[in-house]
Structure formats: C-alpha cells, structure tokens
C-alpha cells in the first residue's frame, strides 16, 4: 500500500498542472450550459430546443417574435405582410429588407424564399414535417418589377398563419443550388404531384442527392445563413462555439431594433448532462449562464452565499403542468366525475413542493398574463376531498359497504395514472393524488412509463389519467390538435370530443378580430372547466442563473428563457 501516497502525489501534480494550463480563451466568450446535444442543425429538420436556439442565430426567417412584448415583428422583411383575402385563400405580400445580404454580399431576394419553399417540398429529402407544417403555402408569386417583393398564397383564413408563413429559416440559393436548377419547378406542382414533378424536372433528383450528400445536419458550415453568427466548432456531446460575423448585414441598419442587434462576440454552449456537475462548473466560473436549473437548485443557490458572484432571474413562462382524463373511459365519461376528481389535487402545496413557489396558478389553458383572453371570473380549483366525495355522489356514484364507488354497473372506481418514468415532478403529483383519492376510497395505481411507451399509451388511449407538461404559445391559440375530435390518435390524449367544443375551437382558429377572438376564448375556458377533460395545475416560471460577469440579461417567458443577443460581458466595452 505504498502505492497510495504516490498516487495521491500524482493526483496533486496533475491538478496543479491543470490549474496552470487552464484555458484562458474565455475572455470574450459567454459560456452557456446545455443539457443535451442539438443533434441536427439542418434548419428544415430542427426538433430539439437546443437546435432551435442555434438555428435562430445562424439563420434568419421573414418574421420573428419580439419576446418581450410578445408580438410578431419583421426580421428579414421591412414590415408585416399586407393581407388580402379571396374566398378561402389568403394573400400575404412581403417586402424584403434592402440591407439584408448573405455572407458573400449578395442580397437576400424573393427567389431565395421561393427556393426555400421548393427545398421543403423536394422529394427524397427528410423534410416531411416542414412539408406538413408549411403545406398551407400553396404558391409563391415573385414580383417581376421588384426582386425583393413576393406574395404567398395560403389556403387558410386563420390569423395564425401570418406568423406561420414567415417563421422558417430562409436558405441561400447561391450556396445550395448555384445554377438555379429548381427555379423552373412550379411550387404548386411540387406540392400536389411529386411524382409528376420529378418526371418533368429530373434536376430535383440530382438536387436531393446533393443535399443529402452535404449532410447539412452535422455540417451547418456548408449552409451559410444570413443570421448574426457562424458556427466555429462543434464537438458532438461536448460543446458548440458560435462566433459573431464581423460584417453582419443588420449592422448597417441606422437604428436596429433589439432583435437585429447581436452583442456577444462569441458564444460557447457547453453540453453538461448532469445538473450537479453543471452547478459546480458555474460556481467555479467555468460557465457563465445556467438556464433552467431545477427549481430546487435555484432556490438553494439563491439562499447560499454565492450571491456576490451569481445573479438570479426568473420569468413567468408558458409551460404548464396538466393532468388529463381519458374521457372515453366509461368511468370518466361524465364531466361531473372528472370535476369531482379534479378537486383532489392540492395545487398550492404541489407548487411549493415541486417548484418552491416558482410557479403560478391559472384556471385554464390560457396564461393569466393574457389579460384580454383570460377568463378571470372562473374560480381557482380548491383542494377538498370532502367536496370531491359530495360531487361524486351527485354524479351518481355510490360508496358500497363492501368498498369502492359504483355507478350502476360501473365500478368500483379505480384509476391508473400514467406519467413519464423518472419525472419526479409528475411522480409527486401522482403520489399526492393517490393519497388524497385513498382518503375518499378511490384506488389509484401509478403507471410510470418510458417516453416511447408513454407516447404509445397516450395516443392509443390505453390509460385513465395522465400527467404531462404542455407548452403554451403566446402568439396563437390553436386547440385543434389538443382538444378537437380530429386530434384523437394524435395529440388529443384526453380523447375529448364534443360538437360544441369542436365548433368553438374552429371558430377560435378562424377569428381575425382580436376582441371577438378573446370573447370566444373566454367561452372556451368556461366550457373547459365545465367538461374538465384537462386540469391545469400550474404554470411554471423560467429560471436563470448567471455569473456577475454577464450583464444586461433579459429574461423571456418563451424558450430558451433569456435573450441571448442582448447578453454582454462586464469587461467588454459597450
């Protein structure tokens, strides 16, 4: 065991050497923690939130959202589109900014937009979901007089399509298709009859082969975007470094709005899966920004002495925890039963236990910050097993002496509740519900399941209740997938189906006038409370810890929770 001392010596030596050679290239870099790799950086394939974050730095789309005022604002274009409606078609006319250029100085033109739409629909490319998402754009008309002006003809009258028509990254035609081989392909043909399009335009096949060959998912450098940053290095599952372009086009704007200013010189995203490790790295100063720590870590750190070096921020988010009932189960078919069961959630205590108060309540799927649409006349749900028992009786259930609640031949009332295995927050809710239900004689079985299995259970309706995190959207209210009859088998996991609700959902999606829209939404919230297919437990707050090195931090209510463009380092000159 003389080994031990020599081993310790070696360790110390090693450590000392590390201390000396520790990299010092972080002077102008902001280091941000990521829990996982973005996996793919092809702008047409993005799926992970990390990838979305980076794509918005590498590329620009026509429109973006002003995350502070929660409005849609023009990005690559001069202003919001001019809208005109003809029958069921909507024409959106855009004018691209004159200053907008690619990295090589060429202007961003309408034909780049047309090219992007064609790439989406090009057969043989893995862009099926972009195809479905932007399938409502039927045709693009280029203005022959102004090469920066174009009109999108969309097959929907919903006001939500304005943002949807402009939120995809615009791809550079000069880099992917320098000869313009796709220009001759009509978008309408490509959308409707792919086989015919390929037969008439063999160039499509060659283009698809080239596109796949380039492996843009892993080599975003082969796809130069017109965003403020370029990718400097990317080591899978380790880090990703972005560098600000010296001559980004928006720098030439006389008075650029915040979303057209990029402050940080260099951004280094560090991929650290483990929370403890990430916190340690933050405290040691090898990280500058730690978005979304767990609520527990956040409150513990805020209470500790590190506040001299660290700064803490929160912002109300649109993420909510939702409990759903499978409304097609015989036991849960009546709304009264569902309403009774929703009284068994001790929401204030759950908020305290899972988020240490970093959460806020809402009566429905609408965020209370949306003053116009929020139905504030509805009362918050109370926690009351006694009342739940009374309402169960009103719903026709009877507690038999032998045990269990019976409603005619249906019974005894026993429920299985599904949630993502390993999600402690969901498990806490399930355990609390189980304990409360046990008090009134309802047996509840917990069913944690692995993500893929859970997805299958939910989609096929093989569950009684479920707990899920849902992300709301501040820009549009589209309840079609979530609660419409046509969403069953897709995302309508509560399998809620009611003609009145369907009509209301369709009306909400189609209503252009904001006041009437808000009125419809208020009616919808009343209906939701009455039918209770879903119970919103609470909305959560975004959390962010930064070192004091980083100044001018702006927190956002939408992902990723902070405005990366506005970050500045204390040492750097403004």
């Amino acid at each position, binding site marked *: 065991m003389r080994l031990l001392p020599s081993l310790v010596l070696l360790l110390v030596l090693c450590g000392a050497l590390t201390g000396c050679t520790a990299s010092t290239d972080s002077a102008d870099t902001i280091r941000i923690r990521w829990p996982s790799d973005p996996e793919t950086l092809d702008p047409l394939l993005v799926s992970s939130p990390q990838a979305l974050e980076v794509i918005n730095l590498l590329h620009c789309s026509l429109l973006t959202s002003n995350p502070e005022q929660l409005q849609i604002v023009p990005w690559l274009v001069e202003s919001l589109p001019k809208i005109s409606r003809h029958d069921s078609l909507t024409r959106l006319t855009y004018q691209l900014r004159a200053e907008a250029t690619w990295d090589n100085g060429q202007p961003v033109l309408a034909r780049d937009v047309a090219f992007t739409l064609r790439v989406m629909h090009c057969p043989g490319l893995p862009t099926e979901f972009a195809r479905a998402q932007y399938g409502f754009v039927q045709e693009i008309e280029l203005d022959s007089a102004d090469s920066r002006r174009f009109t999108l003809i969309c097959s929907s009258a919903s006001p939500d399509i304005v943002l949807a028509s402009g939120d995809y990254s615009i791809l550079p035609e000069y880099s992917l298709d320098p000869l313009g081989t796709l220009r001759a392909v009509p978008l309408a043909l490509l959308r409707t009859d792919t086989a015919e399009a390929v037969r008439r335009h063999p160039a499509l096949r060659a283009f698809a082969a080239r596109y796949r060959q380039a492996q843009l998912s892993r080599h975003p450098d082969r796809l130069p975007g017109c965003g403020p940053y370029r990718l400097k290095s990317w080591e899978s599952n380790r880090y990703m470094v972005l560098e600000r372009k010296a001559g980004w086009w928006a720098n030439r704007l006389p008075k650029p709005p915040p979303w057209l200013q990029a402050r940080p010189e260099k951004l280094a995203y560090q991929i650290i899966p483990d*929370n*403890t490790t990430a916190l340690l790295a933050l405290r040691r100063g090898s990280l500058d920004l730690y978005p979304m720590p*767990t609520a*527990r870590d956040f409150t*513990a750190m805020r209470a500790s002495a590190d506040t001299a070096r660290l700064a803490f921020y929160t912002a109300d988010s649109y993420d909510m925890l939702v409990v759903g009932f499978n409304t097609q189960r015989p036991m849960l078919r009546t709304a009264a039963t569902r309403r009774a069961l929703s009284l068994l959630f*001790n929401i204030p*205590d*759950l908020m*305290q*236990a899972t988020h240490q108060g970093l959460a806020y309540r809402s009566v429905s799927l609408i965020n209370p910050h949306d003053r116009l649409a929020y139905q504030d006349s509805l009362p918050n749900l109370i926690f009351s097993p006694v009342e739940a028992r009374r309402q169960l009786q009103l719903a026709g259930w009877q507690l038999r002496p032998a045990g269990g609640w019976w409603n005619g031949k249906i019974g005894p009332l026993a429920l299985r509740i599904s949630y993502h*295995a*390993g999600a*402690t927050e969901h*498990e*806490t809710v*399930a*355990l*609390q519900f*189980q*304990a409360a239900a*046990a008090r009134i004689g309802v047996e509840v*079985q*917990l*069913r*944690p*399941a*692995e993500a*893929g*299995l859970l997805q299958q259970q939910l989609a096929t309706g093989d569950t009684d209740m479920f707990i899920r995190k849902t992300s709301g959207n501040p820009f549009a209210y589209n309840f079609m997938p979530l609660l419409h009859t046509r969403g069953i088998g897709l995302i309508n996991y509560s399998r809620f189906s009611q003609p009145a609700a369907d009509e209301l959902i369709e009306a909400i999606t189609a209503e252009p006038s904001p006041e009437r829209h808000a009125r419809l939404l208020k009616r919808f919230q009343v209906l939701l409370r009455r039918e209770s297919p879903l119970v919103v437990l609470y909305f959560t707050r975004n959390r962010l810890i930064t070192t004091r090195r980083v100044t001018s931090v702006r927190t956002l209510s939408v992902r990723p929770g902070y405005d990366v463009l506005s970050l500045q380092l204390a040492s750097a000159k403004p």
Partner: protein
Amino acid sequence: MTSTGLRTKRNWSWHLSLGWLLLLAAAALLADLFSLPTGPDLLRSNAAPLTPGHLLGTDSQGQDVLRGMLYGARTALLVSIPTTLLASALGTALGVAAGYWGNTRLRIPKHWLGSVAVALIFYIFFAAPANSVLAGWWPWCTAGGGLLLSVALSRFSQWRTTVALPVDSLVSAAIVFLAALPRLLLVVLVATAVTPSVTTLVLLLTLTFWVPTARLIRAEVRRIRWLPYLEAAVALGLPAHQILLRHVLPNCWHVVRTAVPLSLAILISLETTLSFLGVGLPPELPSWGRLLAAGRIAPSCWWLIVFPTIALLLTALSLRRLVAAPEPHSRVLQAP
C-alpha cells in the same frame, strides 16, 4: 491460542451479522405497526433529519425516509435477497453445466433430440384451426405428438445413438447476448410485453443477473474437472449428478460465496434503475434503491445517501459473514 482467539472473534462478528439480519426481518415484519406518515408531506420536502415528524428527514417528494428505510427492508428481504440467491443458483447451475460437460461430454439420444426439434418446428410454423376444440390444447397436442414420435424413433437403432449437446457454446451465447443487450432496451422490451409487477421484476432480474456467477463458476469447474479425484470419480462410473453434487459443487463453493454478497449491492442499484425506467417496483413501494435514486437528484441531501448506503453495506457484510463465513486462516500464513 490463535485458534481460540479466532473463534471468539468469529462468534462476535457472526452474532452481530445475525443480529442485523434479524433486525432487518423484524423491521420488515413490523413496519406496519409504526404509525409513520404515509403519502407525501408536500410542505416539508427534502427536510433534514430530526425534523419534527420525520426522524430521518424526507426526500424530494416529501416521503418519510424512516418509513422508506423500514419498508425498504421488506423490499430487500422479499425482492433483492431472494433474487440474488435465485440468480446465483441459476448461474451456478449453468456455469457447472458448461464447465463440466463442455461442448462434447453431454450426449443425448438422437431420437429424443429429433422429436423435440420436430415438435417445436411444427408448433412454431403451424397453428391449430381457430375456433376448434384443438385451439386451446394446441401446445399439449404438439408435445404429445413429439413424445409419440420419440417412442417410435427409439425403435430404430440409428436413432438410438447419441449426439453431443454443445452446452458450453449455448451458455456462452446466452451470456454474450445478455451482456450485450443495453439495459434500457431490455427494460423497454419487457415493459411492452408484460405489465410490470414484483414477480416480473424478480424474474427479469434473475434472468439477467446470473451471468457473472455463471462465468466465474464455469472457469473454476473447468479447472477442477481434470483434477485427479474427479477423474477417479468418473472412472469409477459414478452417475453425473452424484459427481456434480458431491465433488464439483463443494469445491467451487468458495467462488459463489464471495460473489453473492457483492452482487446484492449491484442488484439493489439495478432494481432502482429499473424502477426509474418504469418496470421495477411500483412507485409507492419504498426501497433503499429508491432513496438512493432520490439522492442522485439532490446530492446536497446527504441523508438520502448515507442511511440506505449504511443499511446496504451492513446487509451485504452480514450476508457475507453468514452465507460466506470465511475459513479460519491457514496457520502457515499466520505464523510470523
């Protein structure tokens, strides 16, 4: 002098080990008698030990740690220890078979092998007509057919000859298969096939956990297979089961003995992983592993790690002391 000293020392630690396991059993039996807080105490999650109402604190879901420890003892006794023993038994059996018979020495009559193969193939490829009387009895029908075939074949002399069953290769293949399968995959596969319960958990753990024991035993049996006394036993014509039980097993017992207590800890953490993935113990059933897993999420809560670890360690050591009481040291080496 030395020997008496050794004996008292052994007795002392032996009693302590027995005491701990008895305590464990008592805790498991009497857990229901303590009026411990059930259900999560939401307002006091992650409470430190000695919080009023929670002697050993709570985990991040507000569950009482003391309750977790007591009921965890029950889980350990009913799930983990039996599984360890079962898996060790299975591993020993397969390891002994592979090591003793190798690829050539287990010979099976051809008629037997042939009829099993035919029956299996028949069963796999053909279904009984649906809605007929046969449908429910189909497996039995094919098995019966196989038996008849075997009897019929045994009348021909060329079918009575024997062929070697490659036991060793079969066991090795199973080992490679189980060891190569990522755990997450296995778990998800099982979860799609059956609904999770304690029985499936015990079966799953046993079926995956015999591998290390089997490999160890196989190596040891291969060594002692050719030692003179075994050769003599074979030459005497003793039946195989007698050789295995009387001569092989006792001589490789020490390998099992050292491996058993070591695997208990691994097993308990494995059971936690499985519970974490949704096929293990039901979430409301406390276990030491679950406490440890809660400690993984909140490493600053030392009480979630320290208490279950101590319990685990004591159990493993006690088991080792009782199942695997080490021999007194050879006097050759004790001499100065």
